[in-house]
């Protein structure tokens, strides 16, 4: 049945890295991320007829996102996947200098550990912006929120990220794994 799957393979499979990256960041581990990508691709294949051209990567990522959140909700049996934003801890700005941050950022494991600590809605905004290079508008479309929400999530996610990175350096002086 290669003929039937060929258009799908050509359009969707080039974005497997993006699908995996998002799933990996939302699930937190390789095993679940693989499962989620597999399930998402099957869904994407099933609904490929409803894909009307345009950004196939964004289309796939929307499916990945839905798949992962449905799964998380089933697994957590109703625990909130997202924390209501107004209840989020307010972070104060910490004073940092670029050298300090740059030095810290060179350690990819430390960076990953820091991103993993962000709450999911901030994390996905950072992933879509910095790793997939999507514009605010595109992120808003994928996530299904207003552009203003994307901007505030990004701003707060970045502020938290910066704080976590600098603090983990100051307290431990080394890698937290």
């Amino acid at each position, binding site marked *: 049945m*290669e003929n*039937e*799957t060929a258009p*799908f*393979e050509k359009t969707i*499979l080039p974005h*497997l*890295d993006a*699908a*995996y*990256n998002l799933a990996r*960041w939302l699930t937190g581990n*390789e095993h679940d*991320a*693989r499962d989620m*990508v*597999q399930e998402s*691709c*099957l*869904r994407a*294949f*099933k*609904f*490929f*007829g*409803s894909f*009307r051209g345009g950004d196939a990567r964004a*289309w796939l990522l*929307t499916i990945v996102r*839905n798949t992962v*959140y*449905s799964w998380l*909700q*089933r697994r957590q*049996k*109703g625990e*909130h*996947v997202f924390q209501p934003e107004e209840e989020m801890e307010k972070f104060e700005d910490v004073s*940092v*200098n*670029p050298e300090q*941050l740059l030095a*810290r*950022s060179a350690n*990819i494991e430390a*960076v*990953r550990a820091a991103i993993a600590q962000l709450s999911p809605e901030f994390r996905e905004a*950072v992933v879509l*912006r*910095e*790793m997939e290079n999507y*514009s*605010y508008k595109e992120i808003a479309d994928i996530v*299904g929120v207003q552009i203003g929400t994307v*901007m505030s999530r*990004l701003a707060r996610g*970045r502020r938290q*990220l*910066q704080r976590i*990175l600098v603090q983990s350096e100051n307290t431990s002086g080394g890698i937290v794994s």
Partner: protein
Amino acid sequence: MNCDDARRLIAPYSDGELDLVRSLEVEEHLRGCESCAAARENLRALKQAAHSAYFHAPDGLRESVLAAVRASDPIPQNVVVRRAPRFWIATGVALAAGILLGFFAGQIRIRDASEQSLLAALTDSHVRSLIGAHLTDVVSSDQHTVRPWFEGKLDFAPPVTDLSGQGFPLVGGRVEYIDGRAVAALVYERRKHFINLFVWPATAGNQEVKGEKPQRGYNIVRWRAAGMNYWAVSEVAEDDLRKFAVAFEDATTSAR
């Protein structure tokens, strides 16, 4: 441009979201302001760091996805074996009648079973939407916000209408996967209770509003109109759900 403005614009500037004039203004400020320039450098370092944290797909994932896709049936068709006519002549009228009887009984059973699984799936979706944070993907009481949101997410355009005037304000919507297809879930409120209205294209003609057997304490009414299936699931009383159905139909019929 003062520092407050510049600090606010550094992120959109670094993300390439500003127009040329604004970008130049930010750049000019950064040239003259050390502390804002440092903030920009911090952001740049952070962006680079985050970018480097990318996880590439592990070995073998592509192959396993390919294998799964190729093995899957792209379009789940109704598998009803139509072999009755061949048996007609070969085995005589009596046997054929028997087979036909069995065939129809089987079809009814299949329909019952699939309706039952549909009812269960819709109820599950309703319950999930209440216990999780995932009641809506687009939150808006404005039908002109909710309707376009579905574009590109579905292969059909569900009619969306606010019914605040009739006591059923629109809360928002989301996309659900039910029974192997993407369906629209419109969320309405009725005195602090939510109603999930599931919508997807119908293959059969119009059908009156009809109450289904309550599932796990949730009431369900369904109808078909203008080429769409509508299933409303909620803890509100069936009478209210019927009122909702009528209000929805009135509003969308007059809009058509």
